[in-house]
Protein backbone atom coordinates (compact mmCIF):
# COMPACT_ATOMS: atom_id res chain seq x y z
CA UNK A 1 0.00 0.00 0.00
CA UNK A 2 1.21 3.42 -0.95
CA UNK A 3 -0.49 5.58 1.62
CA UNK A 4 -3.05 5.38 4.38
CA UNK A 5 -6.54 6.26 3.28
CA UNK A 6 -8.93 4.75 5.79
CA UNK A 7 -12.00 5.85 3.86
CA UNK A 8 -10.80 4.22 0.63
CA UNK A 9 -9.95 1.05 2.56
CA UNK A 10 -13.49 0.99 3.83
CA UNK A 11 -14.93 1.53 0.37
CA UNK A 12 -12.65 -1.22 -0.97
CA UNK A 13 -13.85 -3.78 1.54
CA UNK A 14 -17.45 -2.71 1.01
CA UNK A 15 -17.19 -3.13 -2.77
CA UNK A 16 -15.47 -6.50 -2.45
CA UNK A 17 -17.95 -7.83 0.08
CA UNK A 18 -20.78 -6.65 -2.13
CA UNK A 19 -19.12 -8.36 -5.11
CA UNK A 20 -18.72 -11.61 -3.21
CA UNK A 21 -22.35 -11.50 -2.09
CA UNK A 22 -23.73 -10.74 -5.54
CA UNK A 23 -21.61 -13.49 -7.05
CA UNK A 24 -22.74 -15.97 -4.40
CA UNK A 25 -26.43 -14.99 -4.35
CA UNK A 26 -27.72 -17.15 -7.25
CA UNK A 27 -25.99 -20.21 -5.82
CA UNK A 28 -27.31 -19.46 -2.34
CA UNK A 29 -30.86 -19.29 -3.69
CA UNK A 30 -30.26 -22.53 -5.62
CA UNK A 31 -29.05 -24.21 -2.44
CA UNK A 32 -32.07 -22.99 -0.46
CA UNK A 33 -34.45 -24.17 -3.17
CA UNK A 34 -32.78 -27.57 -3.11
CA UNK A 35 -33.70 -27.96 0.58
CA UNK A 36 -37.39 -27.17 0.14
CA UNK A 37 -40.44 -29.20 -0.73
CA UNK A 38 -41.92 -28.52 -4.16
CA UNK A 39 -44.75 -26.41 -2.71
CA UNK A 40 -42.31 -24.32 -0.70
CA UNK A 41 -40.05 -23.84 -3.71
CA UNK A 42 -42.97 -22.69 -5.84
CA UNK A 43 -44.40 -20.26 -3.30
CA UNK A 44 -43.86 -16.59 -4.11
CA UNK A 45 -41.72 -15.18 -2.66
CA UNK A 46 -39.67 -18.23 -1.85
CA UNK A 47 -38.22 -18.35 1.67
CA UNK A 48 -34.51 -17.58 2.03
CA UNK A 49 -33.71 -19.90 4.91
CA UNK A 50 -32.96 -23.61 4.46
CA UNK A 51 -35.89 -26.02 4.60
CA UNK A 52 -36.06 -29.59 5.87
CA UNK A 53 -35.96 -31.58 2.66
CA UNK A 54 -32.26 -31.49 1.86
CA UNK A 55 -31.51 -35.19 2.24
CA UNK A 56 -34.83 -36.23 0.75
CA UNK A 57 -34.36 -34.08 -2.41
CA UNK A 58 -30.77 -35.10 -3.02
CA UNK A 59 -31.48 -38.77 -2.41
CA UNK A 60 -34.39 -38.57 -4.81
CA UNK A 61 -32.55 -36.98 -7.72
CA UNK A 62 -29.56 -39.26 -7.24
CA UNK A 63 -31.76 -42.34 -7.38
CA UNK A 64 -34.71 -41.36 -9.59
CA UNK A 65 -34.23 -37.97 -11.21
CA UNK A 66 -37.27 -35.76 -11.61
CA UNK A 67 -40.58 -37.45 -12.24
CA UNK A 68 -41.99 -34.60 -14.33
CA UNK A 69 -38.97 -33.97 -16.54
CA UNK A 70 -36.25 -36.43 -17.38
CA UNK A 71 -36.46 -39.34 -14.97
CA UNK A 72 -32.94 -40.64 -15.40
CA UNK A 73 -31.10 -40.96 -12.07
CA UNK A 74 -28.62 -38.15 -11.53
CA UNK A 75 -26.05 -40.56 -10.06
CA UNK A 76 -25.72 -42.03 -13.54
CA UNK A 77 -25.36 -38.54 -15.03
CA UNK A 78 -22.65 -37.65 -12.52
CA UNK A 79 -20.82 -40.80 -13.54
CA UNK A 80 -21.14 -39.81 -17.22
CA UNK A 81 -19.88 -36.31 -16.46
CA UNK A 82 -16.97 -37.73 -14.53
CA UNK A 83 -16.05 -40.15 -17.32
CA UNK A 84 -16.32 -37.36 -19.86
CA UNK A 85 -14.27 -34.87 -17.83
CA UNK A 86 -11.56 -37.43 -17.02
CA UNK A 87 -11.36 -38.84 -20.54
CA UNK A 88 -11.12 -35.38 -22.06
CA UNK A 89 -8.53 -34.07 -19.61
CA UNK A 90 -6.36 -37.19 -19.61
CA UNK A 91 -6.78 -37.63 -23.36
CA UNK A 92 -5.93 -34.03 -24.16
CA UNK A 93 -2.88 -34.07 -21.93
CA UNK A 94 -1.65 -37.38 -23.34
CA UNK A 95 -1.93 -36.62 -27.02
CA UNK A 96 -0.69 -33.06 -26.55
CA UNK A 97 2.39 -33.94 -24.56
CA UNK A 98 3.31 -36.59 -27.13
CA UNK A 99 2.96 -34.25 -30.09
CA UNK A 100 4.81 -31.46 -28.30
CA UNK A 101 7.62 -33.92 -27.57
CA UNK A 102 7.78 -34.88 -31.26
CA UNK A 103 7.78 -31.28 -32.42
CA UNK A 104 10.44 -30.03 -30.02
CA UNK A 105 12.86 -32.96 -29.84
CA UNK A 106 12.88 -34.30 -33.40
CA UNK A 107 13.62 -32.92 -36.84
CA UNK A 108 11.63 -34.61 -39.56
CA UNK A 109 9.98 -33.75 -42.85
CA UNK A 110 6.62 -31.96 -42.56
CA UNK A 111 7.33 -30.91 -38.98
CA UNK A 112 6.20 -27.35 -39.60
CA UNK A 113 3.13 -28.54 -41.49
CA UNK A 114 2.05 -30.60 -38.51
CA UNK A 115 2.65 -27.66 -36.22
CA UNK A 116 0.44 -25.39 -38.31
CA UNK A 117 -2.25 -28.02 -38.63
CA UNK A 118 -2.45 -28.14 -34.85
CA UNK A 119 -2.44 -24.36 -34.70
CA UNK A 120 -5.38 -24.07 -37.10
CA UNK A 121 -7.60 -26.19 -34.84
CA UNK A 122 -7.67 -23.16 -32.51
CA UNK A 123 -9.86 -21.53 -35.10
CA UNK A 124 -12.40 -24.33 -35.37
CA UNK A 125 -14.39 -24.56 -32.13
CA UNK A 126 -17.21 -27.13 -32.07
CA UNK A 127 -19.80 -24.39 -32.30
CA UNK A 128 -18.81 -23.44 -35.83
CA UNK A 129 -18.77 -26.93 -37.26
CA UNK A 130 -21.70 -28.44 -35.40
CA UNK A 131 -23.55 -30.17 -38.19
CA UNK A 132 -20.69 -31.75 -40.17
CA UNK A 133 -18.93 -32.96 -37.01
CA UNK A 134 -22.17 -34.49 -35.83
CA UNK A 135 -22.48 -36.28 -39.17
CA UNK A 136 -18.97 -37.71 -38.92
CA UNK A 137 -19.71 -39.00 -35.44
CA UNK A 138 -23.02 -40.46 -36.59
CA UNK A 139 -21.37 -42.22 -39.53
CA UNK A 140 -18.76 -43.70 -37.22
CA UNK A 141 -21.63 -45.03 -35.05
CA UNK A 142 -20.38 -43.10 -32.07
CA UNK A 143 -23.72 -41.53 -31.05
CA UNK A 144 -24.54 -42.40 -27.43
CA UNK A 145 -21.08 -43.75 -26.69
CA UNK A 146 -18.36 -42.43 -24.42
CA UNK A 147 -16.02 -42.42 -27.40
CA UNK A 148 -18.38 -40.12 -29.29
CA UNK A 149 -18.70 -37.85 -26.25
CA UNK A 150 -14.99 -37.45 -25.73
CA UNK A 151 -12.73 -38.21 -28.70
CA UNK A 152 -13.89 -35.32 -30.92
CA UNK A 153 -13.03 -32.92 -28.09
CA UNK A 154 -9.57 -34.17 -27.15
CA UNK A 155 -7.51 -32.50 -29.84
CA UNK A 156 -6.17 -29.38 -28.19
CA UNK A 157 -3.87 -26.81 -29.71
CA UNK A 158 -3.71 -24.96 -26.40
CA UNK A 159 -2.29 -27.89 -24.47
CA UNK A 160 0.18 -28.73 -27.24
CA UNK A 161 1.48 -25.16 -27.27
CA UNK A 162 1.76 -25.07 -23.52
CA UNK A 163 3.90 -28.22 -23.45
CA UNK A 164 5.93 -27.00 -26.40
CA UNK A 165 6.64 -23.71 -24.60
CA UNK A 166 7.65 -25.62 -21.52
CA UNK A 167 9.90 -28.11 -23.35
CA UNK A 168 11.71 -25.21 -24.99
CA UNK A 169 12.72 -24.00 -21.52
CA UNK A 170 14.09 -27.39 -20.46
CA UNK A 171 17.93 -27.20 -20.67
CA UNK A 172 19.26 -28.97 -23.74
CA UNK A 173 22.02 -30.51 -21.63
CA UNK A 174 19.51 -32.83 -20.04
CA UNK A 175 18.68 -34.44 -23.35
CA UNK A 176 22.36 -34.52 -24.35
CA UNK A 177 23.28 -36.19 -21.08
CA UNK A 178 20.48 -38.70 -21.43
CA UNK A 179 21.63 -39.56 -24.91
CA UNK A 180 25.24 -39.96 -23.84
CA UNK A 181 24.15 -42.30 -21.09
CA UNK A 182 22.53 -44.38 -23.77
CA UNK A 183 18.92 -43.52 -23.09
CA UNK A 184 16.59 -43.61 -26.07
CA UNK A 185 14.04 -40.84 -26.71
CA UNK A 186 11.17 -42.60 -24.95
CA UNK A 187 13.33 -43.34 -21.94
CA UNK A 188 14.28 -39.66 -21.76
CA UNK A 189 10.62 -38.70 -22.13
CA UNK A 190 9.52 -40.99 -19.34
CA UNK A 191 12.34 -40.46 -16.85
CA UNK A 192 13.23 -36.81 -17.40
CA UNK A 193 10.54 -34.88 -19.25
CA UNK A 194 7.44 -36.30 -17.58
CA UNK A 195 8.63 -35.70 -14.01
CA UNK A 196 9.66 -32.15 -14.96
CA UNK A 197 6.24 -31.48 -16.47
CA UNK A 198 4.31 -32.40 -13.33
CA UNK A 199 3.19 -28.86 -12.44
CA UNK A 200 2.16 -28.13 -16.00
CA UNK A 201 0.21 -31.36 -16.17
CA UNK A 202 -1.58 -30.57 -12.91
CA UNK A 203 -2.43 -27.06 -14.08
CA UNK A 204 -3.77 -28.27 -17.42
CA UNK A 205 -5.67 -31.06 -15.75
CA UNK A 206 -7.67 -28.61 -13.64
CA UNK A 207 -8.60 -26.45 -16.63
CA UNK A 208 -9.42 -29.38 -18.91
CA UNK A 209 -11.41 -31.20 -16.26
CA UNK A 210 -13.67 -28.18 -15.83
CA UNK A 211 -13.88 -27.79 -19.60
CA UNK A 212 -14.96 -31.42 -19.98
CA UNK A 213 -17.37 -31.39 -17.06
CA UNK A 214 -19.14 -28.25 -18.29
CA UNK A 215 -19.55 -29.24 -21.94
CA UNK A 216 -23.04 -28.58 -23.18
CA UNK A 217 -23.49 -28.37 -26.93
CA UNK A 218 -21.58 -31.51 -27.74
CA UNK A 219 -23.29 -33.89 -25.29
CA UNK A 220 -26.59 -32.30 -26.30
CA UNK A 221 -25.98 -33.47 -29.87
CA UNK A 222 -24.33 -36.80 -29.23
CA UNK A 223 -26.54 -38.20 -26.48
CA UNK A 224 -30.08 -39.27 -27.26
CA UNK A 225 -30.45 -41.90 -24.60
CA UNK A 226 -31.06 -40.91 -20.98
CA UNK A 227 -28.35 -43.28 -19.79
CA UNK A 228 -25.76 -41.20 -21.60
CA UNK A 229 -26.82 -37.73 -20.38
CA UNK A 230 -24.23 -35.73 -18.53
CA UNK A 231 -25.34 -33.80 -15.45
CA UNK A 232 -25.45 -30.45 -17.25
CA UNK A 233 -27.67 -31.91 -19.99
CA UNK A 234 -29.78 -33.68 -17.39
CA UNK A 235 -30.66 -30.39 -15.67
CA UNK A 236 -31.79 -28.92 -18.96
CA UNK A 237 -33.95 -31.99 -19.65
CA UNK A 238 -35.60 -31.67 -16.23
CA UNK A 239 -37.15 -28.39 -17.33
CA UNK A 240 -39.79 -29.45 -19.83
CA UNK A 241 -41.01 -25.87 -20.20
CA UNK A 242 -43.51 -23.89 -18.17
CA UNK A 243 -42.88 -23.19 -14.50
CA UNK A 244 -45.67 -25.33 -13.13
CA UNK A 245 -44.42 -28.55 -14.67
CA UNK A 246 -40.90 -28.14 -13.32
CA UNK A 247 -39.82 -29.58 -10.00
CA UNK A 248 -37.57 -26.65 -9.21
CA UNK A 249 -36.40 -28.03 -5.88
CA UNK A 250 -35.06 -31.13 -7.66
CA UNK A 251 -33.64 -29.12 -10.56
CA UNK A 252 -31.73 -26.96 -8.10
CA UNK A 253 -30.48 -30.01 -6.19
CA UNK A 254 -29.14 -31.35 -9.48
CA UNK A 255 -27.63 -27.96 -10.30
CA UNK A 256 -25.82 -28.03 -6.95
CA UNK A 257 -24.53 -31.51 -7.72
CA UNK A 258 -23.33 -30.29 -11.13
CA UNK A 259 -21.50 -27.33 -9.61
CA UNK A 260 -19.86 -28.89 -6.58
CA UNK A 261 -17.18 -31.10 -8.20
CA UNK A 262 -15.66 -28.46 -10.52
CA UNK A 263 -16.00 -25.71 -7.89
CA UNK A 264 -14.19 -27.88 -5.34
CA UNK A 265 -11.42 -28.54 -7.82
CA UNK A 266 -11.01 -24.81 -8.47
CA UNK A 267 -10.88 -23.99 -4.78
CA UNK A 268 -8.74 -26.91 -3.61
CA UNK A 269 -6.32 -26.74 -6.54
CA UNK A 270 -6.41 -22.94 -6.77
CA UNK A 271 -2.67 -22.57 -7.32
CA UNK A 272 -2.66 -24.93 -10.32
CA UNK A 273 -5.94 -23.53 -11.56
CA UNK A 274 -4.56 -19.99 -11.75
CA UNK A 275 -1.35 -21.22 -13.35
CA UNK A 276 -3.25 -23.29 -15.88
CA UNK A 277 -5.57 -20.45 -16.76
CA UNK A 278 -2.81 -17.89 -17.18
CA UNK A 279 -0.42 -20.24 -19.00
CA UNK A 280 -2.93 -21.62 -21.43
CA UNK A 281 -3.74 -18.14 -22.68
CA UNK A 282 -0.17 -17.24 -23.54
Amino acid at each position, binding site marked *: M*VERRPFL*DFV*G*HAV*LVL*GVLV*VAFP*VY*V*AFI*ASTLSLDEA*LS*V*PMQLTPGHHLLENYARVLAHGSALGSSAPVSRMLLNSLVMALAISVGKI*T*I*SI*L*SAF*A*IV*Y*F*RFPLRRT*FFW*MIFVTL*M*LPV*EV*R*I*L*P*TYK*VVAELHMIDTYAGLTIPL*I*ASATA*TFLFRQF*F*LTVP*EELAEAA*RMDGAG*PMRFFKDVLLPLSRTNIAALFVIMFIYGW*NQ*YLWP*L*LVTTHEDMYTT*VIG*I*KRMIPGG*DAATEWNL*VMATAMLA*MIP*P*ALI*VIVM*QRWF*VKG*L*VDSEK
Partner: protein
Amino acid sequence: MKRAVFGSRGLPYALLAPQMAVTLVFFFWPAFQAIYQSTLLQDVFASHVQFVGLENFRDLFADPLYLASIKVTALFSVLVAGFGLAIALILAVFADRVVHGAAIYKTLLIWPYAVAPAVAGILWLFLLSPSLGILAHVLTRMGYDWNYLVHPKQALLLVVVAAVWKQISYNFLFFLAGLQSIPKSLIEAAAIDGAGPLRRFWTIVMPLLSPTSFFLLVVNIVYAFFDTFAIVDAATHGGPGQATDILVFKVYQDGMQAGDLGGSAAQSVILMTIVIVLTVIQFRYIEKKVRY
Protein backbone atom coordinates in the same frame (compact mmCIF):
# COMPACT_ATOMS: atom_id res chain seq x y z
CA MET B 1 15.08 -22.81 -31.41
CA LYS B 2 16.16 -26.03 -29.85
CA ARG B 3 18.54 -28.33 -31.66
CA ALA B 4 17.22 -31.68 -32.73
CA VAL B 5 18.47 -34.14 -30.20
CA PHE B 6 17.09 -37.46 -31.19
CA GLY B 7 17.36 -38.98 -34.60
CA SER B 8 14.61 -41.40 -35.40
CA ARG B 9 12.65 -41.93 -38.58
CA GLY B 10 9.30 -43.30 -37.55
CA LEU B 11 9.02 -42.26 -33.92
CA PRO B 12 8.00 -38.60 -34.30
CA TYR B 13 5.22 -39.56 -36.69
CA ALA B 14 4.00 -42.20 -34.28
CA LEU B 15 4.00 -39.61 -31.48
CA LEU B 16 2.00 -37.16 -33.57
CA ALA B 17 -0.37 -39.77 -34.95
CA PRO B 18 -3.08 -39.64 -32.25
CA GLN B 19 -3.43 -35.87 -32.35
CA MET B 20 -3.31 -35.80 -36.14
CA ALA B 21 -5.94 -38.53 -36.41
CA VAL B 22 -8.37 -36.65 -34.17
CA THR B 23 -7.61 -33.35 -35.86
CA LEU B 24 -8.15 -34.68 -39.37
CA VAL B 25 -11.29 -36.66 -38.64
CA PHE B 26 -13.09 -34.25 -36.32
CA PHE B 27 -11.71 -30.84 -37.27
CA PHE B 28 -10.47 -30.66 -40.84
CA TRP B 29 -12.92 -33.00 -42.48
CA PRO B 30 -16.02 -31.35 -40.91
CA ALA B 31 -14.66 -27.89 -41.66
CA PHE B 32 -14.07 -28.90 -45.26
CA GLN B 33 -17.58 -30.37 -45.38
CA ALA B 34 -19.04 -27.13 -44.04
CA ILE B 35 -17.32 -25.13 -46.76
CA TYR B 36 -18.35 -27.61 -49.45
CA GLN B 37 -21.98 -27.76 -48.30
CA SER B 38 -22.25 -24.03 -48.05
CA THR B 39 -22.10 -23.99 -51.86
CA LEU B 40 -24.87 -26.57 -52.29
CA LEU B 41 -28.60 -26.44 -52.25
CA GLN B 42 -30.21 -29.61 -50.95
CA ASP B 43 -33.35 -30.71 -49.21
CA VAL B 44 -33.42 -32.59 -45.93
CA PHE B 45 -33.29 -36.04 -47.51
CA ALA B 46 -30.46 -35.05 -49.83
CA SER B 47 -32.43 -36.32 -52.84
CA HIS B 48 -31.77 -33.14 -54.81
CA VAL B 49 -28.34 -31.66 -54.57
CA GLN B 50 -27.40 -28.73 -56.67
CA PHE B 51 -24.29 -26.58 -56.80
CA VAL B 52 -25.26 -22.97 -56.25
CA GLY B 53 -21.96 -21.22 -55.63
CA LEU B 54 -22.30 -18.30 -53.27
CA GLU B 55 -26.07 -18.20 -53.38
CA ASN B 56 -26.48 -19.48 -49.81
CA PHE B 57 -24.38 -16.58 -48.61
CA ARG B 58 -26.32 -14.11 -50.72
CA ASP B 59 -29.56 -15.49 -49.32
CA LEU B 60 -28.26 -15.20 -45.78
CA PHE B 61 -27.31 -11.57 -46.10
CA ALA B 62 -30.66 -10.83 -47.70
CA ASP B 63 -32.50 -12.63 -44.90
CA PRO B 64 -33.86 -10.16 -42.34
CA LEU B 65 -33.79 -12.89 -39.69
CA TYR B 66 -30.06 -13.42 -40.18
CA LEU B 67 -29.34 -9.70 -40.18
CA ALA B 68 -31.36 -9.40 -36.97
CA SER B 69 -29.29 -12.20 -35.47
CA ILE B 70 -26.08 -10.38 -36.37
CA LYS B 71 -27.39 -7.27 -34.69
CA VAL B 72 -28.40 -9.17 -31.55
CA THR B 73 -25.00 -10.87 -31.40
CA ALA B 74 -23.17 -7.56 -31.74
CA LEU B 75 -25.23 -5.91 -29.03
CA PHE B 76 -24.95 -8.97 -26.82
CA SER B 77 -21.16 -9.22 -27.07
CA VAL B 78 -20.69 -5.48 -26.48
CA LEU B 79 -22.82 -5.70 -23.34
CA VAL B 80 -21.20 -8.89 -22.06
CA ALA B 81 -17.65 -7.69 -22.70
CA GLY B 82 -18.38 -4.17 -21.42
CA PHE B 83 -20.02 -5.09 -18.16
CA GLY B 84 -17.84 -8.15 -17.60
CA LEU B 85 -14.65 -6.13 -17.94
CA ALA B 86 -15.83 -3.08 -16.01
CA ILE B 87 -17.11 -4.98 -12.99
CA ALA B 88 -14.09 -7.29 -12.88
CA LEU B 89 -11.72 -4.33 -13.12
CA ILE B 90 -13.37 -2.52 -10.21
CA LEU B 91 -13.19 -5.66 -8.06
CA ALA B 92 -9.58 -6.32 -9.05
CA VAL B 93 -8.47 -2.76 -8.31
CA PHE B 94 -9.86 -2.97 -4.79
CA ALA B 95 -8.60 -6.52 -4.25
CA ASP B 96 -5.14 -5.33 -5.26
CA ARG B 97 -5.41 -2.50 -2.74
CA VAL B 98 -6.60 -4.28 0.41
CA VAL B 99 -3.89 -5.53 2.69
CA HIS B 100 -5.90 -7.97 4.74
CA GLY B 101 -8.07 -10.65 3.24
CA ALA B 102 -7.02 -10.28 -0.41
CA ALA B 103 -6.51 -14.04 -0.71
CA ILE B 104 -9.93 -14.75 0.75
CA TYR B 105 -11.66 -12.32 -1.60
CA LYS B 106 -9.84 -13.93 -4.49
CA THR B 107 -11.00 -17.43 -3.53
CA LEU B 108 -14.56 -16.20 -3.05
CA LEU B 109 -14.61 -14.48 -6.42
CA ILE B 110 -13.04 -17.06 -8.72
CA TRP B 111 -15.20 -20.13 -8.20
CA PRO B 112 -17.98 -19.15 -10.68
CA TYR B 113 -15.44 -20.06 -13.36
CA ALA B 114 -16.28 -23.66 -12.48
CA VAL B 115 -20.01 -23.22 -13.10
CA ALA B 116 -21.19 -24.53 -16.47
CA PRO B 117 -22.71 -21.81 -18.67
CA ALA B 118 -25.90 -23.86 -18.96
CA VAL B 119 -26.17 -24.03 -15.16
CA ALA B 120 -25.50 -20.28 -14.91
CA GLY B 121 -28.38 -19.73 -17.32
CA ILE B 122 -30.69 -21.90 -15.24
CA LEU B 123 -29.71 -20.23 -11.94
CA TRP B 124 -30.60 -16.80 -13.32
CA LEU B 125 -33.69 -18.16 -15.01
CA PHE B 126 -34.85 -19.34 -11.60
CA LEU B 127 -34.16 -15.93 -10.04
CA LEU B 128 -35.87 -14.00 -12.81
CA SER B 129 -38.69 -16.32 -13.84
CA PRO B 130 -41.76 -14.04 -14.00
CA SER B 131 -44.07 -16.37 -12.07
CA LEU B 132 -41.81 -17.53 -9.27
CA GLY B 133 -38.37 -15.91 -9.44
CA ILE B 134 -37.37 -14.14 -6.28
CA LEU B 135 -35.76 -11.20 -8.09
CA ALA B 136 -38.71 -11.01 -10.47
CA HIS B 137 -40.91 -10.75 -7.40
CA VAL B 138 -38.85 -7.85 -6.05
CA LEU B 139 -38.96 -6.10 -9.45
CA THR B 140 -42.73 -6.55 -9.71
CA ARG B 141 -43.17 -5.23 -6.18
CA MET B 142 -41.21 -2.15 -7.19
CA GLY B 143 -43.81 -1.57 -9.88
CA TYR B 144 -41.68 -2.80 -12.75
CA ASP B 145 -43.40 -4.84 -15.45
CA TRP B 146 -40.97 -7.77 -15.42
CA ASN B 147 -41.68 -10.59 -17.83
CA TYR B 148 -38.79 -11.61 -20.01
CA LEU B 149 -41.00 -14.10 -21.84
CA VAL B 150 -42.79 -11.15 -23.38
CA HIS B 151 -40.33 -8.26 -23.39
CA PRO B 152 -37.39 -8.78 -25.75
CA LYS B 153 -35.06 -6.37 -23.94
CA GLN B 154 -35.57 -8.15 -20.64
CA ALA B 155 -34.74 -11.50 -22.22
CA LEU B 156 -31.52 -10.07 -23.58
CA LEU B 157 -30.78 -8.61 -20.17
CA LEU B 158 -31.31 -12.03 -18.58
CA VAL B 159 -28.75 -13.76 -20.80
CA VAL B 160 -26.32 -10.84 -20.46
CA VAL B 161 -26.52 -10.99 -16.66
CA ALA B 162 -25.97 -14.75 -16.62
CA ALA B 163 -23.08 -14.51 -19.09
CA VAL B 164 -21.40 -11.66 -17.20
CA TRP B 165 -21.87 -13.35 -13.83
CA LYS B 166 -20.05 -16.42 -15.12
CA GLN B 167 -17.23 -14.49 -16.80
CA ILE B 168 -16.36 -12.02 -14.01
CA SER B 169 -14.12 -14.53 -12.22
CA TYR B 170 -11.97 -15.04 -15.30
CA ASN B 171 -11.57 -11.33 -16.03
CA PHE B 172 -10.93 -10.65 -12.35
CA LEU B 173 -8.03 -13.12 -12.19
CA PHE B 174 -6.32 -11.63 -15.23
CA PHE B 175 -6.84 -8.03 -14.11
CA LEU B 176 -5.53 -8.86 -10.66
CA ALA B 177 -2.43 -10.54 -12.13
CA GLY B 178 -1.94 -7.50 -14.38
CA LEU B 179 -2.29 -5.07 -11.48
CA GLN B 180 0.11 -7.03 -9.31
CA SER B 181 2.78 -6.93 -12.00
CA ILE B 182 2.80 -3.11 -12.09
CA PRO B 183 5.92 -1.96 -10.19
CA LYS B 184 4.93 -0.43 -6.86
CA SER B 185 7.74 2.12 -7.20
CA LEU B 186 5.90 3.82 -10.07
CA ILE B 187 2.78 4.26 -7.98
CA GLU B 188 4.81 5.46 -5.00
CA ALA B 189 6.68 8.01 -7.09
CA ALA B 190 3.38 9.41 -8.35
CA ALA B 191 2.01 9.51 -4.81
CA ILE B 192 5.06 11.43 -3.60
CA ASP B 193 4.52 13.89 -6.44
CA GLY B 194 1.06 14.46 -5.05
CA ALA B 195 -1.11 12.44 -7.43
CA GLY B 196 -4.26 11.13 -5.76
CA PRO B 197 -5.59 7.57 -6.19
CA LEU B 198 -7.91 8.41 -9.09
CA ARG B 199 -5.28 10.33 -10.99
CA ARG B 200 -2.74 7.53 -10.44
CA PHE B 201 -5.27 5.05 -11.73
CA TRP B 202 -5.94 6.93 -14.97
CA THR B 203 -2.39 8.05 -15.74
CA ILE B 204 -0.34 5.07 -14.58
CA VAL B 205 -2.38 1.97 -13.87
CA MET B 206 -4.72 2.06 -16.86
CA PRO B 207 -2.03 2.58 -19.52
CA LEU B 208 0.11 -0.20 -18.03
CA LEU B 209 -2.95 -2.41 -17.87
CA SER B 210 -3.94 -1.83 -21.48
CA PRO B 211 -2.33 -5.02 -22.88
CA THR B 212 -4.28 -7.10 -20.34
CA SER B 213 -7.46 -5.19 -21.09
CA PHE B 214 -7.10 -5.66 -24.82
CA PHE B 215 -6.38 -9.35 -24.45
CA LEU B 216 -9.42 -9.74 -22.20
CA LEU B 217 -11.57 -7.81 -24.63
CA VAL B 218 -10.80 -10.32 -27.40
CA VAL B 219 -11.31 -13.29 -25.08
CA ASN B 220 -14.62 -11.87 -23.88
CA ILE B 221 -15.88 -11.32 -27.39
CA VAL B 222 -14.99 -14.90 -28.29
CA TYR B 223 -16.75 -16.00 -25.12
CA ALA B 224 -19.86 -13.98 -25.93
CA PHE B 225 -19.93 -15.30 -29.49
CA PHE B 226 -19.44 -18.98 -28.83
CA ASP B 227 -19.47 -20.13 -25.22
CA THR B 228 -22.80 -18.52 -24.44
CA PHE B 229 -24.73 -20.96 -26.60
CA ALA B 230 -25.53 -22.98 -23.48
CA ILE B 231 -26.84 -19.94 -21.60
CA VAL B 232 -29.18 -18.99 -24.43
CA ASP B 233 -30.36 -22.54 -25.02
CA ALA B 234 -31.00 -23.13 -21.32
CA ALA B 235 -32.53 -19.77 -20.44
CA THR B 236 -34.42 -18.23 -23.36
CA HIS B 237 -34.14 -20.49 -26.40
CA GLY B 238 -33.43 -17.49 -28.58
CA GLY B 239 -36.73 -15.82 -27.80
CA PRO B 240 -39.00 -14.05 -27.36
CA GLY B 241 -39.17 -13.50 -31.07
CA GLN B 242 -35.54 -13.20 -31.97
CA ALA B 243 -34.45 -11.16 -28.98
CA THR B 244 -31.66 -13.52 -27.90
CA ASP B 245 -31.11 -15.41 -31.14
CA ILE B 246 -27.33 -15.11 -31.29
CA LEU B 247 -25.45 -16.45 -34.33
CA VAL B 248 -24.26 -19.69 -32.74
CA PHE B 249 -27.76 -20.46 -31.60
CA LYS B 250 -29.11 -19.80 -35.09
CA VAL B 251 -26.60 -22.18 -36.72
CA TYR B 252 -27.71 -24.87 -34.34
CA GLN B 253 -31.42 -24.24 -34.85
CA ASP B 254 -31.31 -23.89 -38.62
CA GLY B 255 -29.08 -26.90 -39.04
CA MET B 256 -30.16 -29.37 -36.38
CA GLN B 257 -33.80 -28.49 -36.03
CA ALA B 258 -34.94 -26.79 -39.23
CA GLY B 259 -32.79 -28.99 -41.47
CA ASP B 260 -31.56 -26.13 -43.66
CA LEU B 261 -28.20 -27.74 -44.48
CA GLY B 262 -26.82 -25.27 -47.01
CA GLY B 263 -27.85 -22.22 -45.01
CA SER B 264 -26.48 -23.64 -41.78
CA ALA B 265 -23.20 -24.57 -43.49
CA ALA B 266 -22.91 -21.06 -44.88
CA GLN B 267 -23.47 -19.69 -41.37
CA SER B 268 -20.75 -22.03 -40.08
CA VAL B 269 -18.34 -20.68 -42.68
CA ILE B 270 -19.14 -17.10 -41.66
CA LEU B 271 -18.55 -17.97 -38.00
CA MET B 272 -15.25 -19.66 -38.88
CA THR B 273 -14.17 -16.47 -40.60
CA ILE B 274 -15.03 -14.50 -37.46
CA VAL B 275 -13.02 -16.88 -35.25
CA ILE B 276 -10.06 -16.69 -37.63
CA VAL B 277 -10.08 -12.89 -37.54
CA LEU B 278 -10.33 -12.85 -33.74
CA THR B 279 -7.53 -15.41 -33.38
CA VAL B 280 -5.26 -13.45 -35.67
CA ILE B 281 -5.94 -10.27 -33.68
CA GLN B 282 -5.18 -12.12 -30.47
CA PHE B 283 -1.88 -13.46 -31.76
CA ARG B 284 -0.75 -10.16 -33.22
CA TYR B 285 -1.36 -8.70 -29.80
CA ILE B 286 0.78 -11.36 -28.16
CA GLU B 287 3.67 -10.56 -30.50
CA LYS B 288 3.34 -6.92 -29.49
CA LYS B 289 3.25 -7.76 -25.82
CA VAL B 290 6.72 -9.29 -26.00
CA ARG B 291 8.09 -5.95 -27.08
CA TYR B 292 6.10 -4.07 -24.48
